[in-house]
């Protein structure tokens, strides 16, 4: 993990879209007056004829994307997570997922790490809403390398995809050569004291915790669960068997998100205790991302404490 090079996944998204646009002329991009924040402006500059600024009209945007998809275009749709998954939920459900249309919903500014904008803009329920929709694939990449891979990879699968990204710049975790596969989690380390299953912008916190614990002679492993749906059951069962405890951590409500997804698997396949770290069924507030992470207890220090508790 390179803590010197910090990049927000939204930035990686914008840059990956431009590359994708060059490779595939069926890619069209829609945004709702937030292209400078979601970084779709990079695509807009390169391919103005394939970029559509829909104004502050997210419901219209998602349904328009559905229309494009019926005509064999591959629309990438961007806005903040709260306005995509939240405001346009019914459009995603009825006009995209039910007809199984090839729309890629790339939502930025998810979670508490949005920071100063406060609770109205901090989307903490999108994973649960999106993963409950039939036909939907849900990805939550954790760094620059993985985001670039995800944005290109989802163009290859047919059907709706929700990609959850962040505003906060986070360390680069992977080398460029790293291979990923949708539905296959990445295991980092072999420790058996605990499995720290993380997703998105807190994977780096899990890795920090693992490294600090190693210095103290406590060996854990981190599971980067970049695909929330379909969830990597095999990996979860393997961890349940091999490690003393399972801790999940996410920048999302602990109800219905990654922690719940893991619980669903172990409850049916290999019952064991799961500690769910995340936002504990509360709304956020304004503040610096780092301050909020501390306050809501989703930092490396919080993970270390949980690992040490027996």
């Amino acid at each position, binding site marked *: 993990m390179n803590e010197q090079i910090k990049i927000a996944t939204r930035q990686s998204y914008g840059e990956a879209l431009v590359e994708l646009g060059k490779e595939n002329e069926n890619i069209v991009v829609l945004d709702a007056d937030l292209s400078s924040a979601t970084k779709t402006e990079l695509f807009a500059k390169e391919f103005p004829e394939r970029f559509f600024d829909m104004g502050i009209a997210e*419901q*219209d945007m998602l349904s*328009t*994307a*559905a229309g*494009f998809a019926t*005509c064999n275009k591959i629309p990438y749709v961007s806005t903040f997570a709260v306005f995509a998954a939240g405001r346009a939920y019914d459009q995603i459900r*009825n*006009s995209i997922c039910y*007809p199984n249309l090839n729309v890629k919903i790339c939502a930025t500014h998810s979670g508490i790490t949005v920071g100063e904008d406060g609770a109205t803009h901090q989307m903490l329920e999108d994973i649960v809403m999106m993963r409950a929709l039939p036909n939907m694939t849900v990805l939550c990449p954790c760094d620059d390398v993985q985001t670039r891979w995800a944005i290109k990879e989802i163009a290859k699968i047919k059907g709706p995809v929700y990609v959850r990204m962040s505003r906060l710049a986070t360390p680069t975790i992977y080398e460029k050569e790293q291979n990923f596969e949708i539905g296959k989690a990445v295991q980092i380390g072999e420790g058996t004291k605990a499995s720290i299953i993380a997703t998105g912008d807190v994977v780096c916190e899990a890795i920090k915790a693992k490294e600090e614990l190693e210095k103290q002679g406590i060996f854990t492993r981190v599971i980067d669960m970049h695909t929330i749906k379909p969830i990597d059951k095999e990996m979860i069962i393997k961890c349940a068997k091999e490690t003393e405890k399972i801790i999940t951590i996410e920048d999302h409500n602990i109800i219905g998100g990654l922690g719940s997804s893991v619980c669903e698997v172990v409850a049916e396949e290999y019952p064991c205790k799961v500690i769910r770290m995340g936002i504990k069924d509360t709304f956020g507030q304004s503040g610096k991302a780092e301050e909020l992470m501390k306050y809501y207890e989703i930092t490396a220090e919080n993970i270390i404490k949980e690992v040490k508790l027996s």
Partner: protein
Amino acid sequence: MKITDCKELEKIAKEIRKNIIKQVYEAKSGHPGGSLSCADILTVLYFNQMNVSENEPEDFARDRFVLSKGHCSPALYATLAERGFIPKEELTTFRKIHSKLQGHPDKNKVPGIDMTTGSLGQGLSVANGMALSSKLNHDGYRVYCLLGDGEIEEGQIWEAAMTSSKYHLDNLCAILDYNGLQIDGKVEEVKGLDNIEGKWKSFGFNTIVVDGHNIEQLIDAFETAKMTKGKPSIIIAKTIKGKGVSFMENKAEWHGKAPKEEEYKLAMKELE
């Protein structure tokens, strides 16, 4: 297929009306009122205007149709059956388990249906996406979208109207089935909906007001829309909810109710 004889088109519309009543009667549920009010519009679209083929329902060059008021599926199914997209016998399966003919249209189940609809207010946005796609690659196909008058109370319709206008979608033609009634009563009373033409005009649409049961007027309106360049068109079709069945006409209660046996027989007799 392009039928230009208005008398023949009227006959087809009558057949469609009969099959609307049959479907709703057989299913013991469904929406006869709004289906009957749009039967003439669908007849003109599918038998005079749209470039579609029952032999090649997925032909990329075809014109597209979005039934934004998806609850009027009986009218669309009857039209598609009349045109040969689906067998007429299948109409008796409407709303029954494992049927292709879902309560609201499913594009993945029925040949000839271009978009899945049902949740009101989303169809015009979808039609815009199709029209934008057509423009982007100069595909040339036109896109039609049928809206209900109650449906335009949904805010998304007006978001979509701004989009149609911003992108000068002259390959898009919306049709408003203006029958004046919704479940709870008159559209003017339920939501205070008035000056409908003025609203669409101010959103940048070319507006054409017609009698939605006059085949000739409908054909002329669609031709005018085709010739209008640089802006989207909307045909505001003044219609009668329940048109063709005397006891259903202008009655909000027939929005979503199936006729009983006696009523069914009476309705079918009137439509002979």
